[in-house]
């Protein structure tokens, strides 16, 4: 991957933004069920996906996950890193497959669902909490992911619209 300085700086900025959002979100003193999050950092992953593409989105998501893990609860990386990888990858592949037919909101929702199901799969297989009771959480996780995905997708849409201006490309457009 050829990377010019401008792109590198932008990706670094995106990673740091995502990291801050991730850490901030974990420390928000609002009441919520322990393991449910909005996934604010996904906004930045979406931005990276729209600005550059799948590979860059995956890089931003994974770097963010690692950094937030280091500044947060390290063992949680076991859950957050694979989830960041699969969700960003799936969003990229879906974008590639569906192109214009799936908007930012649709991508965000599918990323959120993949994220949650990945973590569930890790809990089921890796931690061998081998009990159907944990799979009973799947519908709930999908429901939560759809709601969070729509919200963050809308935020990403608003952000991209104002940053880039409408349905146009701004790839390397000097924004």
């Amino acid at each position: 991957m050829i990377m010019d300085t401008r792109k590198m700086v932008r990706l670094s900025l995106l990673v740091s933004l995502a990291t801050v959002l991730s850490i901030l979100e974990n420390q928000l003193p609002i009441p919520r069920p322990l393991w449910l999050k909005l996934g604010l950092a996904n906004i930045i992953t979406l931005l990276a996906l729209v600005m550059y593409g799948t590979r860059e989105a995956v890089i931003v998501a994974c770097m963010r996950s690692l950094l937030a893990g280091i500044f947060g609860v390290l063992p949680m990386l076991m859950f957050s890193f694979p989830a960041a990888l699969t969700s960003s990858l799936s969003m990229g592949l879906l974008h590639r497959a569906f192109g214009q037919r799936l908007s930012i909101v649709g991508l965000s929702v599918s990323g959120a669902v993949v994220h949650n199901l990945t973590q569930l799969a890790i809990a089921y297989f890796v931690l061998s909490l081998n009990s159907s009771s944990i799979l009973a959480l799947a519908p709930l996780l999908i429901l939560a992911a759809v709601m969070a995905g729509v919200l963050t997708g809308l935020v990403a849409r608003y952000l991209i619209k104002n940053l880039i201006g409408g349905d146009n490309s701004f790839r390397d457009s000097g924004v």
Partner: protein
Amino acid sequence: MFIHKLSLTRSDIFLIVGLLAVAIVGLGVVRYMAGGTDTALVQVDGKEVIRASLSQDQRFSVDGPLGSTEIEIKDNRVRVVDSPCRKKICVDTDWIDKPYQTIVCAPNRVVIRLISSRGKDELDGITE
């Protein structure tokens, strides 16, 4: 060029509605599988002591570290009548009758939960 669609598309709606449908059907399936409850499972110190049918009204007691906890089953419900513990949280919990509800007396290490005799897996596995 990386042109991106911003407005909601038909595929978006299909995706979201589809996922919601899957989730709701899933919730229904889970609820159905969890089924009703017909058995009270009493554990002391994590070990099963008594498995009692809810259909049979009865009173019995189990022994914990502090003494004996008296349990009553009546009209398909369970409650702790008396307990040697100090705060009596288990007694205050009063009747339970829904699947996977629990009464816990931490001081006396007694846990009562409602399970289904048909189900092979306990929904509480996650906490153990």
